[in-house]
């Protein structure tokens, strides 16, 4: 059934301070809406449960990408198109650009935001696996001040997260570790999205991974998936198994064995649990094998 717009309320404060005040006046009562690419779908479908919304699209201070010496800050209203078009970001954090390029078609990429992709908290979202692998931090802003949360700790359950009701996600901070993402990095980075078609599809499974091998040993191994658990999943067990171990022909088997406790997909409209678990394992094995074989750089 069609949603009825007058069942909802939308306010558009002109200043960020007013927005933060609205969020803190009645914590949990008011929710932010940015590019609308998730919220408006629910509105049209008649399944938007939340009543009171605050428009944050006009807050330009939440827009843009800041390149610092040691970090890059992608502010929350930065669109997928802006992520894709940014030179430094595309060069050093190619998985993020790839995730943005595979999130919907151009019209969605022009409107959907990185902040929305995170706080909508869909386990099928495309940028979270890349952000987990890059060990991003989130900046949460409220009228009480600002705090920084490691992204790996942020999602605590299905659509559950560490954001307090009065907090607004204002940006994502990516560490520019030259060893991992600089021009001289010896890392292998990979982002793979598996969906029903190349464009527009929502993931059945998506993988982001980064690894570094030195003198035959795995020194960095980061692996994350979308659509295989209740949250965007960092495969910490597989990471622990791989790091410090030999980058040899057994790496893929050891990584695959460590996935079983964490990769717990569901059957739903987009795919089956069995298919997802198998594809996730295949993608992880492929990455581990390529890493052990000495591949470096970014590959899809």
């Amino acid at each position: 059934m069609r949603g009825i717009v007058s069942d909802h309320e939308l306010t558009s404060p002109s200043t960020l301070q007013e927005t933060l005040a609205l969020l803190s006046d009645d914590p949990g009562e008011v929710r932010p809406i940015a590019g609308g690419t998730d919220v408006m779908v629910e509105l049209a479908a008649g399944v938007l449960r939340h009543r009171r919304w605050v428009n944050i699209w006009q807050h330009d201070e939440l827009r843009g990408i800041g390149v610092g010496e040691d970090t890059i800050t992608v502010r929350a209203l930065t669109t997928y198109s802006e992520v894709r078009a940014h030179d430094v970001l595309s060069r050093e954090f190619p998985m993020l650009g790839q995730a943005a390029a595979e999130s919907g078609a151009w019209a969605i990429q022009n409107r959907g935001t990185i902040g929305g992709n995170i706080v909508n908290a869909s386990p099928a979202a495309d940028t979270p696996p890349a952000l987990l692998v890059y060990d991003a931090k989130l900046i949460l802003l409220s009228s009480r001040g600002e705090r920084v949360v490691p992204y790996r700790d942020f999602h605590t359950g299905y659509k559950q997260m560490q954001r307090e009701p009065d907090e607004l996600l204002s940006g994502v901070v990516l560490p520019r570790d030259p060893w991992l993402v600089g021009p001289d990095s010896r890392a292998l980075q990979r982002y793979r999205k598996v969906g029903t078609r190349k464009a527009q599809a929502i993931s059945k499974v998506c993988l982001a991974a980064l690894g570094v091998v030195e003198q035959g040993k795995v020194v960095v191994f980061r692996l994350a998936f979308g659509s295989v658990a209740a949250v965007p999943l960092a495969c910490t067990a597989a990471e622990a198994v791989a790091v410090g171990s030999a980058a040899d022909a057994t790496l893929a088997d050891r990584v695959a064995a460590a996935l079983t406790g964490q990769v717990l997909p569901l059957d739903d409209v987009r795919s089956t649990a069995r298919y997802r678990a198998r594809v996730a394992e295949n993608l992880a094995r492929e990455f581990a094998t390529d890493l052990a074989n000495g591949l470096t750089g970014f590959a899809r």
Partner: protein
Amino acid sequence: MSESPAQSYLRLSVNGVAREVSVHPMTRLIDVLREDVALTGTKEGCGEGECGACSVFIDGVVVNSCLVPVAQVVGTENVTVEGLADGDTLHPVQQAFIAAGGAQCGICTPGMLIAAVALLRDNDEPTEDEIRVALAGNLCRCTGYGRIVQSVVDAATLVRATKGAGA
């Protein structure tokens, strides 16, 4: 209780014309365009950002108008398919779609035109792959993609010729 009224007077610019509408601020842009501004060229297909039939330009950027609350287009320049032609002269993309049979039932056509105009603005010599990527968010239920892609190829030729002549 909330003091914000259900309806607001909003000022919009559509195809260069200033409009004032009295609508709920969360109303979808497509509904305002079709029902309040009476421009019915923009079509609704899926209502969830999959089909692209509702594509319009906001400040020159292609968006799905079914996903934009109207409050977010106050102060922006909005262009619909009705705004592509220059008076009685159709946009080269429109001319090419007519000549090459790029429209069948016509529901996807406004969105296809907007997406094609956006592509050719930045790239007037696109490859077929680039055209297919640019139109990937626009679904044609008649599946007339061959003619649609050909229309964009032809439109690119027209655009280049126009630029050459105008130089």
